[in-house]
């Protein structure tokens, strides 16, 4: 269906090839992986992965010199991305025409399934496989030493400047949450060929200083803007809806979000904070395969 649709669309040339590439492999739809979501099996899967797969695909499936990345840092699946069953099929039977061998017979099938469970955990959002640690202590760090609550809100408690984190673990992968606290340049980019279906929100939370045409200044976080207007959450916790004509000058200030939490906190404190954050959210019904079909 996806192939037919893509060809009918026609002008997104890349789509046809990518879809065709993905479609070369018949889509197996086996029984659900019995180890999916089992933390002990996932840990064993990680071990098995490190023994057999890392040398080509890199640690945690992030791409090596020979094999492609299995886990990417994108917020959306790539076009043509393999689903869990297709990945298991590639592991068992190999990928003809590439260096990827068939592991059936070389690895026990339970190990292959555990590798599949490990990759599923890596590919899912944080809530699918929350990071280990002392969750209660992580919550103390969130509101205390970490000062997260001075910008962010959790279920109505906290502050407004940063994004609401009430559902963060259901929206982002664990590695992206870790990146957001530790890497200055952690912007998440999507697949370049995907057509947007609707106007996306502005989610950069730029801190700005505005000089108004009529005199005075405003500081705050930009919630959105277009060629003619700005929508600002002021440091006064009020919304300021401005026409560009009202703005004499706008400067973007250094980002408000610290990205050195791995240094501000001890390793245990950081791990516990991550254990807390990767549990904030509602588990979504499984629908990752159909999400992919919506793209071009």
């Amino acid at each position, binding site marked *: 269906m996806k192939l037919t*649709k893509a*060809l*009918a*669309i*026609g*002008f997104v*040339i*890349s789509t*046809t*090839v*990518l879809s065709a*590439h993905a479609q070369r492999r018949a889509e197996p739809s086996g029984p659900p992986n019995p180890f999916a979501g089992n933390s002990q099996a996932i840990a064993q899967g990680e071990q098995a992965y490190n023994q057999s797969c890392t040398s080509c695909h890199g640690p945690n499936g992030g*791409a*090596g*010199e*020979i*094999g*492609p*990345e299995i886990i990417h840092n*994108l917020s959306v699946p*790539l*076009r*043509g991305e393999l689903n869990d069953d297709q990945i298991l099929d590639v592991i068992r039977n190999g*990928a003809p*025409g*590439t*260096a*990827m061998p068939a592991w059936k017979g070389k690895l026990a099938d339970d190990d292959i399934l555990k590798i599949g469970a490990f990759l599923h955990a890596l590919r899912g959002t944080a809530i699918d496989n929350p990071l280990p640690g002392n969750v209660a202590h992580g919550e103390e760090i969130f509101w205390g030493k970490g000062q997260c609550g001075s910008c962010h809100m959790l279920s109505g408690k906290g502050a407004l400047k940063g994004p609401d984190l009430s559902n963060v673990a259901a929206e982002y992968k664990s590695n992206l949450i870790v990146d957001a606290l530790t890497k200055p*340049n952690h*912007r998440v*980019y*999507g*697949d*370049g*060929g995907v*057509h*947007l*279906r*609707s*106007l996306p929100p*502005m989610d950069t939370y730029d801190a700005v200083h505005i000089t108004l045409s009529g005199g005075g200044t405003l500081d705050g976080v930009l919630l*959105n*803007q*277009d*060629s*003619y207007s700005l929508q600002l959450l002021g440091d006064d916790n009020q919304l300021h809806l401005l026409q560009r004509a009202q703005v004499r000058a706008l400067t973007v200030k250094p980002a408000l979000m610290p990205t050195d939490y791995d240094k501000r906190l001890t390793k245990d404190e950081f791990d516990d904070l991550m254990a807390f954050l990767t549990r904030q959210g509602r588990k979504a019904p499984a629908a990752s395969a159909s999400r992919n079909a919506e793209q071009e």
Partner: protein
Amino acid sequence: MKNFASAWGRGIFRTLLMGTAVALCASAASAQDVYPAQPGKDWPIYGGSYNNQRYSSLKEITPANAGNLQGKWTYHVEGLQGLESVPVVVNGVMYVSGYNRIDALDARTGNVVWRFRRQPATPAYQRGAAVAHNRVYITTNDGHVLALDARTGAQIWESKGGPKVSFSGMPPMVANGKILVAGNRFGTVGDGGGFIQAYDEQTGEYRWTWRAVPENGDPALDSWGGHVPGGGPIWIGGAYDPELKLVYYGTGQPNPQWSGKGRPGDNLYSDCIVALDIDTGKLKWYFQNTPHDTHDYDSTEIIVLADMTFKGKPRKLALQANRNGYYYILDRTNGEFLQATPFVSRVDWGTVDPKTGKGQPDPAHEPTVKGTITCPSTAGATNWPSPAYNPVTGLFYVTTTEGCGVNTLASSAPDSETSYLESPRDKEAWQLYTRAIDARTGTIKWDYKQVRSNHYGPGLLTSEGGIVFSPEQFGQVSVLDAKTGRSLWHYNTGDLITASPLTYSVDGHQYLAIASGTNIFTFGLPDRSTAVEKKP
């Protein structure tokens, strides 16, 4: 109410009269001269006229009064996932197309005149229809061209004969007694390569095919290093010169898209501007913008035809702002390369020989498993949005993307590829501009930044009134001063825009129109013609 019967009678009489008038006008036009050189009252094909200048003769809307523009009507097109088509307007009727379907609207009010639907229904994106000689022409998603009566939507013919193909949804062209269409896949399965086809305008009989991949006996086959040629998709409309009897089209990338190892050589006729004899479909000349492409730099950007003095000599030119970041000027009589200038700040995929125009890809920018950053990105310095050329300002207006991208391969296998991403480096993020380039020198004259818009984006038009109508990807539509780029008026449509705009007039009033999301929006100056008269 009491006059209902006579009003109805008058309406019928008027309709019959108008129909006759339309038919007379239509039969007066010769097969060679279907459209005026410049769009005015009507916008009958995708580019407004054969030369794709999108330079309207309408003068009602000017920089002086554009600030008074207001919404006239909106029409929701049901059943489509989005609109990328340019509606066409002839004699006050607007035709909005999808695959297998047309909605005909009163272009003053948006009210439906008729609808045509053919099975199978599909929500897929499609680019447009063409109107000529009282007929509307569209393509279907099962490889047919249809001719409908422009007054009622009645089907006159369905194309007959010819090889099996899949059309790309690009708008048909009506020229010299033929309907020209194109697509990405010659045949119905596998990679048969891009093609252009002609059918007889009167009967729908198949006439000829030109294929973008060389066939046996063509020396261009040597440019594939023994690899079976593939790709060269053609998914956007062409231009036509009625005097030279040549049609001009751009072809897409070679296959595999991002991996060139298995296809050493220039890979003709991928990423080319080609000129074909309209009577025979034979190749008259070609110019390849990006030889041995590994970045998906399709040359399918709209080709604009313009006559002007270039370096002291009057020339018939073909102009193209290419996806690879260069603005090309060719002599369209023979394909002679005249000039190429970068129109974006960063171009590093390779170099272009200033004398011959021959592109030389830089091997350091070949896609790899790890990912290689290259400028422009695969999304291109521009893409399918239509540019516009205004002979009075001498400016070529083009929706431009500044930014770079990452190309990755899935493995080291010769045909392996995955996709492309925006560059993660801060200053290489994608940003759209409405950019005015001096058409002769390629110098950038002004920029209008489309705040937040960063990908593909809509096309443009310009007019004798001195404006540029400039929609934005993120839903704003603006009228800019054609000389300075200063914004004069704007309106938020509230949805994404990836179509190109049109302008037309009915009853002497100029309208601007654009598809946004699944709606058509129209704008015009205030007038009282639609006001309800007060009863005494």
